[in-house]
């Protein structure tokens, strides 16, 4: 796949610099009696080129964390620092624009970057190929299935070609097989482009399969409660015993946490 060749080379800042740094970040929604503390003094550092997975119970603040990093919401306490790097975020809902065709949605970020027509059509087709949707470019979003829409959203996020990629349950609506293929693709793109990825998922094995680290958040208010480094050799397989083993360990920890906060 020629995607990499057609992109402008990124200056290699060397893996290891802190790219995303959260220090005691808090986020409160609403105020007064209606206030809800979604995140409470979260500290987290993601280094250049790292693949970090976030796990946590439903409603614990994972999406909130991503939207803070993307600058969509404002923190209500602490310090957040991403060094002004370009960020791309794939939302939990596909949120495609209904007035654009599938390929139009994928092309949009390229268009905004001023990429020429022929060039961006080519890149969009390549990206659709990656998410295994070539041939669906002329369809409208409402003509796609839920999982297909999510894949288009992924292609759109990749088209942005940002340094930091935030992904909110990107593969939740996909079957195991399609997901495996996309895991491979994502890992390849991440490696080749030296991306920094913050990845939210509910699938622990997925987190272990992909992540350099797996971060566990507690529930309401969200706090970092554990940070598992994943050291298995890549490429990993999701059904390998190593992955399953570490996943089981993390699952136990997660269960204990959820049970403690049972609401």
């Amino acid at each position: 796949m020629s995607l990499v060749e057609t992109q402008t080379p990124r200056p290699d800042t060397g893996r290891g610099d802190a790219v995303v740094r959260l220090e005691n970040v808090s986020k409160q929604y609403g105020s007064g009696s209606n206030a809800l503390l979604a995140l409470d003094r979260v500290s987290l550092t993601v280094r250049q080129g790292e693949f970090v997975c976030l796990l946590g119970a439903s409603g614990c603040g994972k999406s909130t964390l991503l939207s803070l990093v993307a600058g969509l919401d404002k923190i209500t306490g602490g310090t957040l620092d991403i060094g002004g790097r370009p960020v791309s975020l794939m939302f939990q809902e596909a949120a495609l624009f209904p007035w654009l065709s599938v390929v139009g949605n994928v092309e949009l970020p390229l268009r905004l970057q001023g990429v020429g027509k022929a060039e961006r059509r080519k890149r969009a087709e390549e990206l659709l190929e990656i998410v295994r949707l070539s041939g669906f470019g002329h369809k409208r979003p409402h003509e796609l299935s839920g999982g297909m829409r999510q894949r288009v959203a992924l292609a759109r996020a990749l088209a942005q070609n940002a340094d930091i990629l935030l992904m909110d349950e990107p593969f939740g609506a996909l079957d195991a097989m399609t997901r495996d293929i996309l895991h491979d693709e994502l890992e390849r793109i991440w490696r080749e482009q030296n991306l920094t990825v913050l990845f939210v998922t509910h699938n622990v094995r997925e987190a272990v399969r992909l992540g350099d680290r797996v971060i566990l958040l507690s529930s309401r208010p969200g706090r970092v409660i554990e940070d598992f480094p994943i050291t298995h050799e890549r490429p990993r397989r999701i059904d390998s015993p190593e992955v399953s083993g570490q996943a089981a360990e993390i699952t136990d920890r997660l269960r204990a946490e959820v049970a403690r906060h049972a609401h």
Partner: protein
Amino acid sequence: MPIKYPSARAGLEGAGGESAVAEVPEKVGVNPTNDQVSGLDALELAPRSDKGTLGKRIWRSAWPKLLAIAIVVLIWQIVVWSEWKPEYVLPGPKTVFTDLGDVITTGDFWDGVRLTLIRALTGFALAVIIGTAVGAAVSRFAPLRAAIGSLITGLQTMPSIMWFPLAILLFQISESAIMFVVIIGAAPSVANGLISGIDYVPRTWLRVGQVLGMKGLAKYRHLILPASLPSFISGLKQGWAFSWRSLMAGELLVIVPGALSIGVRMQQARDLSDSSLVICYIIVVLVIGILIDVLFNAADNALRKRWGLTGS
């Protein structure tokens, strides 16, 4: 008692359980065949089936209109026959259509129509440009919104007759005075449509736009305008109505040598107490209004189709 869902193919194969349909009618919510009768459902949920030939399609969209016209004309004729009012007060369809025939076969009339339409379209186009600019500016800058947001609707409630003194003051008796009245009548609607559309752009899309780094003009071009298009189009529709009405009033202001505009002709018919001619011009204005509306509806339908009948 099971309901059969007859399908296109099943119909050909023989209607096995057809009679059973009537037996369990209380759960029609899950029965698509029963819901077909409601226009909205049929429109929104049923897949558009065979389109037929062009002629057939035109006929299909035209016959209810023709029927409606026929019914109105019939009622009118019955009222006339009942001699509720003398013929010179309420002339019958025959008289009116004869007059209409006479009127529309004069080249003079078409000169008037052309003049009026050119004015309407120029004025409306300008109103759209101005309204869009103002609407975008108002919804973008909070202080501007606070300052003149309400003024926009306020302006709209001014009867156009009250603008004449100002129009004459600024533009004397000239085409520009008419344009002024038309624009000030229509631009607020266009602006309001855009503002309300922008206000209701789903939050998610705004966030997507922000993530994609949309700003300033690009944001309007690629996100705000397409997302608020439905409301914008309905604002345009209203704006058209306002501009047409203002034009009818405004045309009484300026008489351009050569061709008598529709507004002037209408006023004249009224001045002459020529009921039949008045009704003629009512019909002419209605027909023009309807034709323009058909254009707007075509735009609207294209949009709804593109959007998959609605938002994602």
